């Protein structure tokens, strides 16, 4: 990596720095910031000069650093001849535009953002042409797109839609480019641009090759505004003129051209590539020129002209011969010069005369002779008239087209179309000049713009005029660029005068026909105005809103308020999974499970009856009752399955659920809302039930006692001292699950406190005591018993059915009972202290082990007077507190009827 490689990085960094600096400069210098930036651009160009000279000697300058490994992106910059040419455009035209800005932009306004974006764009464009890595090229490509979006957006409210169109069209192309780059990297085995370009054989042999070419072409077409994507470019003219001149005439739209030139090394001469580029390019050239010929707005005219010229460039690249490529390269340069000039002039006219419409402008030649002269120079160059550089490049193009050999007769067709486009070009060139500058003077008080305003345009215009005769000056640059595009080429020398060649004849034909068209302009105009105007923007908008509409349709099911609409989907998913499973699992996996206890069948029958009654009833009270009955039946099933702890807990939970439901239902209707017929719901539910049953049948009961189960049965008593194995799992072996579930309860309680704000940390007990006088005595009578029962369950839980959960739930029933009996709880029996103490105790018991150097939740004992306190008991106490906290919260927040709620 040479020191010159470093200058490439420095150049990019400098552009970035200039960009970031520009808002600050703008605050200082106002619109004159542009001059500083112009100098900056030139300095950057100067910095690149040594590298450029190396590049023009055939030795590409590179700089490379790894960016990421996988996906592999390397920050490789590479300056060769082609890159040098485009650097020259980017920085040269950039400097002119920057110098143009200060007089164009309004005085006193804030233009920091515009300068920032313009400079940023310049940097991105520079990066794009210097990128030596496929993906890095994409990175800069997209940055130019984004910069363009925001620069168009500086046009205000009317610019929003055009900006969006431009972004989306070029963005789409950008994504095509991304895929192209990725595929190319795979096909060529590298993402290094130089390596890839050398791997022509591998790429062309790859099955991915056609796709890569198509994607590259798509990217180039969108960026370079080829049919059918051309519409975004005229739309982009809502931006201020410097933006139009810089991005949408001279540089950004040339990114597509650059891309096609760059990858000509791979695809040049491939029939598909040629036919596609030539077909679309020439079509674009003719249509764009025809469209330009009927525009009245000078800027729009120039935009269509740009489209047309880009079409010619694309077509020439498509021809793929060395001559054609060379012509395309030269014309790219020429176009940048004359089109930038014309845009700047139109901006000048706009500023000076207040209009860009040729129907309102007239006779400006008389008061703005200098401006008119410059416009004339650029116009002649565009029209391809001697002695401008445009003449040379157009001649070369004709030569190139005539030599097209993609298919028999290609040359004739291509040349004919190219001439047609050029005739139209000549005509609209005249239209510009005649429309604005000729004729009688209509507006008074106009004057020639200040020299500073037109100087940048003058530089470009004069360069265009001078470089025609002196075109050979460009030879080293152009020839190296051609070599870089087509490494096998023998690049031609450009000559101002070819002698009386066929091309000269074509040029003469062009000018003659153009003059005819111009002289018959009224008739031509009428005829053109009658032709249908293909409105790509409208078509784009239709597609755009169709996509938005489709999105709204896709999202509609998810805007539903019906809960069932959402819950049906997992049910259906379950059914689908079941169907899949039915095919996937074969017979041997299914066992009939344990020999069923005959009592099981009775329980099952009861369960079916109760569930059926529950789903059918519309009485809320019946539903509560039947839910309780189902709970009782399931509890019996658990008992039969040898799970007394589960049965006990289920019973307690069931009752508290029923009580809570009763509290809530007291504010609602005793009848459930009448549902629709629900055949679909029944079918879905039935299917889900079937799947669940089959799944249970197939996937349970087919194996011996699990090692974990055996371990717990074996180890519970010796390791923990507890005889209730389930409880030892809860508090000893898998205490973390228990801590989690207790936290769930605490969260539910805190959530209820948040959802139903009541008196701050109110104590349990509702305002009404419905059965106070009768239940009060009962409560007094039973409370000690319940408390004792709870304590018993808690303390004996390690050995017998019970434990913190069920004990707390029993205590919870006392709280609920107390509420019904109208007996308020004590101060400490309020949600906050219970929940807080539970959470703190639970986490602290676990963390104490950590503090002691053991794993979290490792059991330990604390000596207390008269024995030891084991940490599992403390842990269970934490659970107890949280469970009780939830029950107290429920009674506190749901016990009061909705009417009594604040």
């Amino acid at each position, binding site marked *: 990596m040479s020191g010159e490689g470093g200058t490439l990085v420095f150049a990019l960094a400098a552009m970035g720095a200039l960009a970031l600096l520009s808002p600050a400069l703008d605050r200082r210098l106002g619109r004159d910031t542009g001059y500083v930036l112009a100098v900056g651009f030139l300095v950057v160009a100067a910095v690149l000069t040594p590298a450029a000279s190396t590049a023009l000697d055939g030795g590409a300058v590179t700089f490379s650093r790894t960016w990421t490994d996988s996906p592999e992106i390397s920050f490789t910059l590479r300056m060769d001849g082609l890159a040098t040419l485009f650097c020259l455009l980017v920085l040269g035209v950039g400097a002119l535009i920057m110098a143009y800005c200060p007089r164009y932009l309004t005085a006193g306004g804030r233009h920091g953002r515009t300068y920032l974006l313009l400079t940023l764009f310049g940097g991105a464009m520079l990066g794009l042409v210097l990128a030596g890595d496929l993906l890095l090229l994409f990175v800069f490509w997209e940055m130019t797109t984004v910069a363009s979006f925001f620069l168009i957006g500086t046009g205000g409210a009317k610019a929003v839609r055009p900006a969006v169109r431009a972004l989306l069209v070029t963005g789409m192309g950008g994504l095509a480019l991304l895929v192209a780059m990725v595929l190319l990297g795979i096909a060529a085995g590298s993402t290094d641009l130089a390596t890839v370009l050398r791997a022509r054989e591998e790429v062309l042999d790859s099955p991915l090759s056609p796709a890569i070419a198509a994607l590259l072409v798509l990217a180039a077409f969108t960026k370079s505004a080829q049919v059918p994507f051309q519409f975004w470019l005229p739309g982009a003219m809502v931006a201020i003129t410097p933006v139009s001149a810089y991005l949408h005439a001279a540089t950004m739209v040339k990114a597509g051209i650059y891309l096609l030139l760059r990858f000509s090394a791979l695809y040049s001469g491939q029939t598909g590539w040629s036919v596609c580029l030539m077909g679309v390019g020439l079509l674009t050239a003719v249509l764009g020129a025809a469209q330009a010929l009927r525009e009245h707005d000078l800027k729009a005219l120039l935009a269509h002209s740009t489209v047309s010229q880009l079409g010619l460039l694309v077509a020439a690249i498509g021809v793929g011969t060395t001559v054609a490529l060379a012509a395309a390269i030269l014309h790219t340069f020429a176009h940048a010069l004359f089109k930038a000039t014309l845009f700047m002039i139109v901006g000048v006219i706009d500023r000076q005369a207040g209009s860009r419409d040729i129907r309102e402008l007239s006779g400006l030649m008389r008061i703005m002779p200098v401006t008119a002269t410059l416009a004339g120079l650029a116009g002649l160059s565009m029209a391809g008239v001697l002695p401008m550089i445009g003449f040379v490049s157009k001649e070369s193009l004709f030569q190139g087209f005539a030599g097209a050999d993609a298919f028999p007769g290609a040359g004739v067709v291509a040349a004919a179309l190219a001439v047609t486009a050029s005739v139209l070009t000549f005509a609209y060139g005249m239209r510009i000049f005649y429309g604005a500058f000729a004729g009688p003077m209509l507006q008074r008080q106009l004057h020639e713009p200040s020299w500073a305003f037109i100087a940048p345009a003058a530089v470009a215009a004069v360069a265009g005029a001078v470089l025609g005769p002196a075109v050979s000056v460009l030879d080293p640059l152009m020839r190296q660029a051609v070599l870089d595009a087509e490494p096998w080429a023998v690049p031609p020398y450009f000559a101002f005068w070819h002698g009386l060649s066929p091309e000269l004849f074509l040029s003469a034909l062009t000018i003659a026909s153009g003059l005819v068209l111009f002289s018959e302009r009224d008739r031509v105009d009428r005829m053109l105005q009658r032709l249908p105007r293909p409105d790509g923007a409208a078509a784009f908008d239709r597609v755009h809103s169709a996509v938005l509409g489709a999105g709204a349709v896709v999202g509609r099911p998810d805007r539903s308020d019906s*809960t*069932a609409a959402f*819950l049906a989907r997992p049910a259906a998913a379950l059914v689908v999974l079941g169907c899949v499973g039915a095919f996937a699992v074969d017979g041997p996996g299914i066992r009939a499970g344990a*020999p*069923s*206890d005959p009592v099981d*069948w009775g*329980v099952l029958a009861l369960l079916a009856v109760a569930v*059926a009654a*529950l789903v059918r009833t519309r009485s*809320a009270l019946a539903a509560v009752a039947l*839910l309780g009955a*189902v709970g009782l039946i*399931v509890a019996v099933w*658990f008992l039969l399955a040898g*799970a*007394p702890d*589960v049965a006990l*807990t*289920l019973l307690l*939970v069931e009752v508290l*659920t029923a009580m809570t*439901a009763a509290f*809530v239902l*007291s504010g*609602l*209707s005793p009848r*459930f*809302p009448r549902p629709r017929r629900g055949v679909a719901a029944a079918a879905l*539910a*039935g299917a*889900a*039930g079937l*799947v*669940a*049953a*089959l799944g*249970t*049948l197939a996937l*349970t*009961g087919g194996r*011996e*006692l*699990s090692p*974990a*189960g055996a371990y*717990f049965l074996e180890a519970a*008593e010796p390791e923990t001292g507890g*005889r209730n194995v*389930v409880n030892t799992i809860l508090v000893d072996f*898998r205490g973390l*699950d228990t801590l989690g579930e207790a936290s769930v*309860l605490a969260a539910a309680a805190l*959530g*209820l406190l948040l959802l*139903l704000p009541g008196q701050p940390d109110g104590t349990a007990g509702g305002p009404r005591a419905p059965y106070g006088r009768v239940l009060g005595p009962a409560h007094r009578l039973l409370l000690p018993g319940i408390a004792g029962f709870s304590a018993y369950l808690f303390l004996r839980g390690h*050995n*017998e059915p019970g434990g913190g959960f069920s004990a707390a739930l029993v205590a919870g029933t006392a709280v609920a009972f107390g509420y019904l009996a109208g007996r308020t709880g004590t101060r400490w029996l309020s949600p906050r202290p219970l929940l807080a103490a539970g959470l703190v105790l639970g986490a602290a018991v676990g963390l104490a082990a950590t503090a002691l150097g053991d794993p979290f939740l490792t059991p330990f004992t604390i000596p207390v007077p008269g024995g030891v306190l084991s940490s599992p008991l403390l842990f269970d106490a934490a659970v107890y507190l949280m469970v009780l906290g*939830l029950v107290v919260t429920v009674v506190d927040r*749901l016990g009061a009827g909705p009417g009594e709620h604040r």
Partner: protein
Amino acid sequence: MTAAIAVGVLTAGGFFLLLRPGLVRITFGFVLLGHAANVLLLAAGGLERREPPLIGDGDRAGMADPLPQAFVLTAIVITFGITVYLLGLARAEHLAGSGSRSGAGPGGPAESAEPPR
């Protein structure tokens, strides 16, 4: 076999209630589904061994797998917490519903409570 059928019955009933209007009924559907999951968990432990896993009370060889029981206990309690919160939400819906202008909740009046009789 019976466990599978029980799971099926509870699942079908639960899903049917889930697909009905009214949050309370939906909540009840979840209670049924919770039962189904719990029965399934116990079945997953194997139902050949049905002695309660209480050391000293019986033959260890016949004792049920205690791990699924612990799972079920955890699941029951979690479901309880959420069920209670759901019912709280039903109350909140009712409060929000009666406090606003139209009186018809999302999904129409059928979804929210009718005023008490």
